[in-house]
Structures are given as structure tokens and as C-alpha cells.
């Protein structure tokens, strides 16, 4: 059994007027100790998927329409407030994209970590433990840093604090939502290395949300690709990156320039990503797909396993070249 199982999850946004579907039958499964990457362009629903896993979507704005989210066998949407507090913290830790907005600007960083410990690991809520976590995420002189406020730290340092904050409760699943997007490449490499070594050391599972296929190849075991509110492909990372089966994944990989690339021009996906509420009927990708048939405009493709561990939402997957 997987640590996290998301089954046929559909979510509506009910902000004003008619509800708008933002997630549509999302499938996700993460085993304990595994690094799972969730890739997609902006608006594909990857952050919303992650937020709904920790049940962080506000009830006033969104409504789960169908489907289940199970963490360690327990239905996340059936938990009482005490169960939810247990889930968020010891179950799921969360690292957000923008550390400068996710940290409390008027609280010393040591106090923020200590508060986390008091809530989730009360026996460990001491200065020494706070300092140890800061040290573990690579912050020098933690006793001095612990007394500083977020604005006194650089972006890379703030992201390390976010990481220390999430890890101090020792979660079984760390959700990292674009943890390095706001950082420069050399700092990104530092943070990525850190997540990877702590993941191995603590044996936790990681759900890494990114739009950068490069990161996926570096640290993930498995990858799910999202498009327009659906997961369109899932598989082992080497299979998906080297032999993508869904036409969208294949086109997306072809449109990214790589170092040492000798191609004259890049593969172009015509058109733009449709926004929620404007999703086309049938297969969501058919207006931009080079392999689309008339049937693609009317029939919803089924989510099916086409090879062991490899799932795809397309009736005409790309053939594997041998």
C-alpha cells in the first residue's frame, strides 16, 4: 500500500458565479521513502493537487466534488480537527515556493521553528533542537541566526529555514512546491542537494512540484505529468524522460533547450495552455496535439496502465523506439 493515494480527485473552485472545475479525476500514488515529481505548466493544477493532499484548500473557495485522498490508509477528508493537526506536521510537511511570504516576518526564525516543535514534537521544543535543525539545513552559526528575522536572511537562507521548519516535525511526506524556482541556479543546486541528502537520511517521501524537467531527472524516482487539471502520464523517471508516452510529455520535453543541444529550432506546441473553465471537450490536449484524431475531440481518454508502472491518459500513446 502506498503512503499517499489520491484516487479520482475532482475539485471545483466556487469563488463567484458558476463553479469552475480546477482538478479533474487526479490520480497520484507515492510510496514511503520515494521521491515523486509532479510536473506541469502554470495553471495545470499541480499546486492545487498538493494543497488538497494536506487539505489546505479553503472550504469557502473550493469544494471537493469527488474522489478520495488517503494518507497512510486514513481518509484525509474524514479527519477531525485534531486528526488534521496530526496530519499537517508529523504526516505532511510543506515547503512553499516563496519563502519570503511563507515565513512570519515579525517572528524570529528560531521562535518559528520552536513553535513548530511545540505543536508537533513537544518533548523536543528546546533551543538546542532548534539550533540542530538550523545546522542540519546548512545554516552557519545557528545560535545567532535563530535570533534573526526573515528579512535579515537571503532567499537561499530563507528557503533553508522553511525546510528546517517543515522537517523539524519529522514528517513522513515532504511536499516541496517549486522550492527552488525563486532561487538562482547555484543556490538552487545547494537547496536541491540538501533536500536529497535529508530525504535519504530521514527516509521520508517527497512530493516535488516543479515545471523544470531538469530537476526531475536529478532527484525523482517517479514522475506524474499534469495538463489542464488532469494527470496525463505517470511512470518511472527514466522511462518518462527518455521514452515519454503521452504526446504532451513528448512535446514538452522537445520544447526545452538543453546544454550541448545542436538542434536548429525547438519543437513548438501550438497555442497556449487552456485556463480552468476553458478546457476543451474530449481530450484536454487535442487542439494542440499533432496526433489527434476526430475521436479525441469527443471522447474522454481513460487512465490506463500501458506497461508495468506506466500509466497514461491517451488512447494513442507514442510508441517506444527500440
Amino acid at each position: 500500500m502506498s503512503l499517499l493515494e489520491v484516487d479520482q480527485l475532482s475539485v471545483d473552485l466556487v469563488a463567484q458565479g458558476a463553479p469552475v472545475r480546477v482538478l479533474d479525476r487526479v490520480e497520484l500514488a507515492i510510496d514511503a521513502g520515494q521521491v515523486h515529481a509532479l510536473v506541469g505548466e502554470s495553471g495545470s493544477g499541480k499546486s492545487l493537487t498538493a494543497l488538497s493532499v494536506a487539505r489546505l484548500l479553503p472550504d469557502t473557495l473550493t469544494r471537493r466534488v469527488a474522489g478520495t485522498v488517503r494518507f497512510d490508509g486514513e481518509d484525509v477528508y474524514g479527519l477531525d480537527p485534531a486528526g488534521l493537526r496530526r496530519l499537517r506536521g508529523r504526516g505532511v510537511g510543506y515547503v512553499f515556493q516563496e519563502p519570503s511570504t511563507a515565513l512570519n516576518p515579525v517572528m524570529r526564525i528560531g521562535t518559528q521553528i520552536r513553535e513548530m516543535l511545540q505543536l508537533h514534537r513537544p518533548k523536543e521544543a528546546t533551543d538546542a533542537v532548534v539550533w540542530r535543525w538550523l545546522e542540519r539545513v546548512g545554516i552557519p552559526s545557528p545560535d545567532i541566526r535563530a535570533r534573526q528575522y526573515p528579512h535579515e536572511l537571503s532567499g537561499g537562507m530563507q528557503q533553508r529555514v522553511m525546510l528546517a521548519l517543515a522537517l523539524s516535525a519529522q514528517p513522513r511526506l515532504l511536499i516541496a512546491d517549486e522550492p527552488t524556482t525563486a532561487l538562482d541556479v547555484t543556490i538552487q543546486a545547494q537547496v536541491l542537494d540538501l533536500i536529497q541528502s535529508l530525504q535519504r537520511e530521514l527516509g521520508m517521501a517527497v512530493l516535488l512540484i516543479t515545471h523544470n524537467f531538469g530537476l526531475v531527472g536529478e532527484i525523482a524516482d517517479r514522475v506524474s505529468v499534469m495538463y489542464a487539471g488532469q494527470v496525463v502520464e505517470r511512470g518511472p523517471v527514466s522511462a518518462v524522460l527518455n521514452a515519454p508516452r503521452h504526446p504532451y510529455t513528448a512535446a514538452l520535453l522537445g520544447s526545452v533547450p538543453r546544454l550541448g543541444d545542436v538542434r536548429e529550432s525547438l519543437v513548438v506546441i501550438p497555442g497556449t495552455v487552456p485556463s480552468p473553465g476553458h478546457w476543451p471537450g474530449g481530450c484536454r490536449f487535442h487542439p494542440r496535439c499533432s496526433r489527434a484524431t476526430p475521436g479525441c475531440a469527443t471522447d474522454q481518454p481513460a487512465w490506463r496502465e500501458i506497461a508495468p508502472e506506466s500509466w497514461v491518459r491517451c488512447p494513442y500513446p507514442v510508441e517506444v523506439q527500440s
Partner: protein
Amino acid sequence: MSLLLVEGLKVHYPARPDWRGRPRAWVRAVDGVGLEVAAGETLGLVGESGCGKSTLGRAIVRLETPTAGSIRFNGEDLAGLDGPALRRARRGLQMIFQDPYGSLDPRWTVGQAIGEGIDIHGLIQEHGARRERIGGLLQDVGLDPAVADRYPHEFSGGQRQRIGIARALAVEPKLIVCDEPVSALDVSVQAQVVNLLQSLQRSRGLAYLFIAHDLAVVEHLSHRVAVMYLGRIMELGPSRTVCGDPLHPYTRALLSAVPEPGVRRRERVILQGDVPSPLQPPSGCPFHPRCPVAVARCRSEVPEFREVAPGRSVACHEVKERFGAS
């Protein structure tokens, strides 16, 4: 002769004013940069945030006033010009901005935005011909000429970037400074804009100064690439050789930090620490506090930016010595 020749360019900003408003320190955003761009060529400019690459680009089109140095464009020094003379000289020099949302006036139609440059330079007087020209420009960037009467909010990010490109093309420039034109775009749209820039270069013989932090995009688009760190150029050379065989330790670290699909657990040079503040740049070589091969000399002596192989220049004491020995 080169189209653009920048020599010894410095842009310093006053900082930390005292009680009388006089600066107590200077931010050396660009600190002695020299580069040249030939007609029809793309020069890529890469570096991390805060290295001064955008300031350099803005100073070249004179959106910033240089503190020192010269910017020769078509043989004329832009650094000393102002008023009508600057405006005339700048016709051949346009800019595309990073943020496709912030760089178009929301209350102007697309046609007005594109037509402004045509009017300022008095290129077309007759109304019908002007309208035709705007339609033609929109077509060149892959948009319907009918969108000229629509407003920026009606377009997606990729389409707005195309409008920005059409606006730059309106005055028939020879060089376009592109400041991170694709970094705000989605991957699939980014490829469309990259291909558009390349085909416009081929059909119009444009030169680009392409500023970006994404090394793979820069390598793909550029003929030559310059690597910037703390206001200085560290390495410059043909893009394939700089990216394939970097000489400067900073370029090496930067390249090895770029994650790539399919490549797993490569040997990486992980740099320690952050980019230092340009308010208090380190003594000697600005990279020495993070450099894995720094020696005592790097702390005291600023390395000269010199040619170490045909077409390749590096600012590093260590590279010079290795080169001389081999």
C-alpha cells in the same frame, strides 16, 4: 566593424545617504565592462540575479546613465548624447522587456503601442500606410493584424511578448536588447518565442544582446556568450565552446548547477555561500570568496580580462597560468 562596441562601462548608484542626502557608498552594478556585438549576431549575457546584467542592458540603450565608459553604436558614442541626438541615435537600438504584463500600457491599444515609435521617429505620415505597417508587423510576429484595436489584457503572456517584439521592430532597429524575454513564459510558449526571435534574426539581419539566467536557452540562441558576476564579465567566447568547455571556475560552477533531464547524479561543483553584495564587493577577484581554486593572489589583485585563445577571453589568474603552461 562592430555594430556595438562597449568599453570600460561603469554604472554606479549612490546608496545609504547621510543626513544631508549625500551618498556614503556606491553600488557598483556595472563595474568596467567591455564587449562588442557584430551586425546579425546574438551575444548572450548570463549571470545570477544581482550580477548587473539587466543594468548593463539598460545602460546600453541609455535607460540608465553610465558613470564612465563609452557605448559606440554605429560609430557614435551614446554615452555622451542626450535629447534629440540621443533619440535619433537610439532608433537603431530597441529593447524587449522581461515582464510582458508590466511593459505594455494597459490603456493603450496594441496598435497605439506599436505605432508610438513610428510617430516619434516620423517614419510614416500617411494614416493608411501607418495602419498597414502595424498590421504587417503583427503578422511578422505571428499575430492577426485585426488585434491592433485590442488592449493588452486580452492577450496571454506569450502573445504580449510578441506584441513587445512587434513594437521593437516598428522602428527597424539593427540591435535589440532582450532582457529575459522568455523567463516569465511557460515552457511550451517559451519555445515559440525563441523560434520567433531566431527567424526574425534570419529574415531581417538583426543583432541581439540576449540577457537571461537560463544557460540552456542562451546557448541555444547565441553565437557568443558573456558570463557576468558582480558587475564584471568573467568569461566571453563562442557559446558552444564556453558551455562545452568552460575555462573560468565560475562558469564551470554555473554550468554544473544546471539540472538536466536524463542526467542523474552528475559530479557537481556546489558553490558555498551567496553572491556578495555589490555594495561591498570583495577585494581582488570578486569571485574569490566562493571560488574552489582561489589562491592568495586572487584576494589582492583584480584579474585582467584578457584573450586566452582566439575569440575567448577570461578574467582569472589561474586560467592564465594553466594556459601558459600548456
